[in-house]
């Protein structure tokens, strides 16, 4: 009985987490396709007041205005690209969570590749350096067999 109570209380606490969305009922479009596009866009648009929150979940006034605006643009027949452009024209690239590839963000975008190639270069260097001594140590087949022989001997003894 107590366990059921515990479960009930736990679910009561957890349940609203999924339901709480800043998108208010009066904003939702009747056209489900457009609405889902609007949701996709607003998840990628930064709230300019709360900054680390997308406007999709933000409760600020400007976020609500932008959500309504996005839906208006979609109803007017804008493509997703055009909607993003509309927002960037007014708020700059800052409003996008995913920064576009420009001269100033090139470093950001190519950094992982750069680090990867640096890693490859270092790895190749290390392996090359290690290979001559590798040969002298391990390419000696007789040594190798002796080692495995001794292992088998040990197993046999047990």
């Amino acid at each position: 009985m107590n366990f059921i109570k515990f479960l009930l209380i736990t679910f009561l606490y957890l349940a609203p987490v999924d339901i709480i969305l800043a998108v208010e009922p009066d904003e939702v479009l009747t056209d489900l396709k457009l609405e889902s596009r609007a949701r996709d866009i607003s998840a990628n648009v930064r709230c300019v007041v709360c900054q680390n929150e997308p406007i999709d979940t933000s409760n600020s006034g400007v976020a609500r205005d932008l959500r309504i605006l996005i839906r208006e643009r979609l109803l007017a027949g804008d493509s997703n690209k055009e909607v993003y452009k509309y927002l960037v024209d007014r708020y700059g690239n800052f409003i996008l969570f995913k920064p576009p590839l420009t001269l100033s963000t090139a470093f950001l975008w190519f950094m992982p590749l750069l680090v990867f190639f640096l890693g490859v270069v270092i790895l190749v260097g290390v392996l090359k350096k290690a290979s001559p001594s590798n040969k002298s140590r391990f390419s000696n087949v007789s040594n190798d067999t002796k080692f495995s022989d001794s292992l088998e001997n040990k197993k046999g003894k047990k």
Partner: protein
Amino acid sequence: MRRFVFLVPLALSLIIGTFSVWGLLNDRNPSEVPSALINRSIPKFNLSPLPGLRTPGFSRDNLLNLKKVSVINFFASWCLPCRAEHQSLIELSQNNEIVLAGINYKDINKDALDWLTELGNPYTYVGDDFSGRTGIDWGITGVPETFIVNRDGKVVHRFSGPLVGVKFKEFKELLTLELR
């Protein structure tokens, strides 16, 4: 070449360290949203006057036809920092070389009228932006926000937050540069 490999960690820590110190010491504000309007022509808008106020409303064309440096100030009666900067705006309004225009952002008409009666009306134009759409066209993030527009109708500076103290001093310096 090989002899200098031991310098690599030192160089790396110097580079990272320099960025860290820059991040800590510089008086930059990382959360300040850079305005997308800087060095661009003022956005299209057309605002009606506040009902009951003699001051006319204004549009983009009004500002372009002025051929004067203009200061566009977003304000609202519900905005406390706006009250703080109002004295600065009164001071600006005494300068005949500039045109000070106000955009009343998401405000109730009567409250805005009371505000201007109580504190004085420094504006040559006051536009009513009840919907906040003109605010979005200017890319504002809140009120107060103030823009300096040069004689060619280009937005040259944006200040967010109240124009008081050091900020107002900086504002006036930049404004003087535009007036030269």
